[in-house]
């Protein structure tokens, strides 16, 4: 079957919905559709807890937000992108307020803001500690106002159609019926989110499998800065459930096995009883996660069946503050860990959380393939550089989702429909899915076995600390796993809500993404932000003040080259926290 739209957005999370609304508002004549593998309100944006940064305080300025973001990124963010971002973020957050987002308030009715890691001023808007949930539901509900926004819920995109040097649509599987659909479009916006599931221990939901990154990569687009994977310092062991940074912003402490606030030993400032911005527990995530590894090496962490942990202490905040400011933290700890943060220490460890890298785009979301746009966690503009600051991602979805929507819409108004060769590609993809996957004879490999091996390879070689040796081995292991994909059995032959086929396609996307991460990490012979090489421990601005670009070569291998960082007002300097 074939469905035609002017603009198709893949992904119904924060970025995808914001793009759709921007198009519906500003180009009401265009036919826009959202293709999403889950109902939009199930998208992973729903789990974001802590908040969204945007300058509103009289004592704050966009320059300070920009500086915090640039220094937080270890100078790898593009400063033109950051300046644009900090200017537009407050407006986007206000717009969301006008759409009904239940932001937490000051007694006089104004928006309340909280502190966040790596930010020098209080500028993080929050809706208690369910910010992403409220943001996503507000966007979803607002999108229902626009009948022009079509939705294909629970459709799984498998391939982008590219001919004549431009994207012409995609192929997707309707999960309920197994029908394979050709969706033609003049412009496609990828808003498919991140890829945390490439790692074994992650805060990311099951759907975060890097599909959009793989779709773009296979269509010839470049993936930028893929070596920069953010570990969040405080995940619950076993489940990987996130304990938001807001818990530390409200005054939580990190303690090692001796009950000692160990961050003071890592050039992050002195311990004070109340939180100090850009200091100690409110330092940036990369530095906090690295400090954890050193505590483990010193034997000062606590051993558990799920590996070493440290303690997050919230007891001194008292139940009242916990219940008003971070109620979800208490709910999650009680329900999933069986501890009450008001009276108990909470065991935590670093956990893979966010992908700084992604599909290379310009400030308007355009990728290196004509007609293909990207926004949100799948994209890399880049405002996050080598380390994202907490609460910059949600406003990024809004700012760049809206921009990508507008640009894609304008592009679509002057672009012709699909070519014959483009449609022929769709037929090929239909056949591939049918023949290769559905008719796959009993193989010898299980999806879960390959997935687990990939995840452990990534954790072992591309985790918080990396080395040339371990990365080189990982390249080989991943190649072996790619080969084994040919031997996977698909037991499920049903057309109706087959979940094994998407799991297979997700795994094959993750293997491509994993390869790009490992290759990018191997080539970057320096340490910067979240990328720490034990064999190259220093930052090397002469060689690597540059974005890596990973492209698929003709022989299927992954090639890396570099693009200079845009530096404007803030020359690369030392990152200083706590002093």
């Amino acid at each position, binding site marked *: 079957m074939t469905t035609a739209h002017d603009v198709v957005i893949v992904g119904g999370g924060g970025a995808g919905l914001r793009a759709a609304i921007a198009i519906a508002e500003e180009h009401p004549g265009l036919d826009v559709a959202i293709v999403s593998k889950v109902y939009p309100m*199930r998208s992973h944006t729903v789990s974001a807890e802590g908040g969204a940064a945007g300058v509103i305080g009289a004592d704050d300025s966009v320059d300070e937000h920009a500086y915090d973001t640039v220094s937080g990124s270890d100078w790898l963010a593009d400063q033109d992108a950051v300046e644009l971002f900090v200017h537009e973020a407050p407006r986007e957050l*206000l717009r969301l307020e006008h*759409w009904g987002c239940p932001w937490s308030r000051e007694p006089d009715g104004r928006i309340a803001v909280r502190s966040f890691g790596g930010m020098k001023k209080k500028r993080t808007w929050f809706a208690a500690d369910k910010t992403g949930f409220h943001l996503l539901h507000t966007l979803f509900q607002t999108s229902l106002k626009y009948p022009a926004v079509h939705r294909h819920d629970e459709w799984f995109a498998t391939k982008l159609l590219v001919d004549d040097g431009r994207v012409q649509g995609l192929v997707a599987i309707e999960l309920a019926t197994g029908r394979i659909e050709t969706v033609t479009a003049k412009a496609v916006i990828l808003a498919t989110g991140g890829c945390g599931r490439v790692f074994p221990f992650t805060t990311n939901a099951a759907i975060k499998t890097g599909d959009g990154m793989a779709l773009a990569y296979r269509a010839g687009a470049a993936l930028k800065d893929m070596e920069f994977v953010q570990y969040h310092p405080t995940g619950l062991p076993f489940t990987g*459930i996130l304990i938001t940074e807001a818990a530390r912003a409200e005054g939580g402490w990190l303690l090692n096995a001796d009950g000692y606030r160990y961050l003071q030993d890592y050039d992050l400032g002195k311990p004070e009883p109340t939180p100090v911005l850009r200091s100690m527990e409110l330092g940036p995530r990369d530095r906090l996660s690295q400090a954890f590894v050193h505590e483990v090496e010193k034997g000062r962490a606590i051993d558990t069946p799920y590996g070493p942990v440290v303690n997050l202490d919230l007891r001194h905040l008292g139940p009242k503050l916990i219940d008003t400011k971070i109620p979800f933290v208490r709910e999650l700890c009680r329900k999933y860990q069986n501890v009450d943060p008001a009276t108990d220490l909470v065991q935590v460890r670093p956990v893979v959380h966010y992908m700084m890298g992604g599909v290379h785009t310009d400030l308007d979301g355009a990728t290196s393939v004509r007609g293909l746009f990207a926004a949100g966690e799948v994209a890399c503009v880049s405002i996050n550089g080598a380390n994202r600051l907490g609460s910059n991602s949600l406003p990024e979805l809004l700012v760049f989702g809206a921009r990508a929507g507008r640009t894609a819409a304008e592009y679509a108004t002057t672009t012709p429909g699909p070519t014959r060769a483009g449609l022929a590609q769709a037929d090929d993809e239909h056949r591939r899915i049918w023949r290769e996957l559905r008719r796959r004879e009993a193989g010898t490999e299980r999806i879960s076995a390959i997935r687990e091996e990939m995840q452990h390879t990534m954790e072992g070689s591309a985790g918080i600390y990396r080395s040339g040796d371990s990365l080189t081995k990982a390249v080989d292991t991943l190649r072996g796993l790619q080969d084994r994909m040919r031997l996977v059995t698909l*037991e*499920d032959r*049903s057309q109706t*809500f087959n979940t094994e086929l998407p799991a297979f396609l997700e795994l094959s996307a993750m293997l491509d993404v994993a390869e790009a991460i490992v290759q990018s990490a191997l080539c970057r012979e320096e340490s910067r932000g979240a990328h720490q090489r034990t064999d190259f421990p220093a930052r090397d601005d002469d060689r690597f003040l540059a974005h890596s670009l990973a492209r698929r070569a003709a022989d299927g291998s992954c090639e890396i080259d570099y693009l200079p960082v845009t530096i404007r007002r803030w020359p690369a300097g030392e990152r200083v926290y706590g002093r």
Partner: protein
Amino acid sequence: MADTMTMRVTRYEPDLDHEPRTQDFSIPLRDNWVVLDGLNYIKDQLDGTLSYRWSCRMGICGSCGMMVDDEPVLTCATFLVDYAPGPIRVEPLANFPVVRDLVVDISDFIERLPRVSPWLVRHEDEPVDDGEYLQTPGELAEYEQYSMCINCMLCYSACPVYGLDPGFIGPAAIALAQRYNLDSRDQGAADRLDVLIHPDGLWGCTFVGECTTACPKDVDPAGAIQRYKLTAAIETLKSYVEGPS
């Protein structure tokens, strides 16, 4: 305590099965495993054909609702040990058509949602540059509870009225309408009235309160319905007194 448990799962594959059947699987019984971990174990290790929905594994995306021992629950927030020694029964959410195995069809709810205008209605939009609409913490508290719905559909599964009359717009949709009606920034209550007082709207509710018991997020849809009935009665009376406007 035994270290395994039997999970009795409802299977249904419309191309093959005339009606749902059950299949027993032996799964590890671990302290920190939730029902969803058991299902993932089956899918990964025993039988790749089992279909069910899940995503966040932290009780917020609303995907993983199922009947566990006859009660609608989020399977990512329901521990296996609470059902030891088993067998534990896992079935698709009641009151919905079953698509396959543990996957139900909720398109009815999704299609009806826009009818209650679940967005902020303003007679005139003020420019964003003029700043936020003021709202005190007290005003926020008026509707906050009703804004917590994750659309998990547990309340529909628990609702005897929805079970008998699938036309009933249902607890979460009414709670969502109330979420906006009670928001000090909203001016759309009148627009929502017609849908809500329609026979498929709130008067369908016989106030059994099962929805509130089932809700994992303390939304209290029954309370929302009850409270709105009063408003609706007053509005309806007013319209009789004042005549059509």
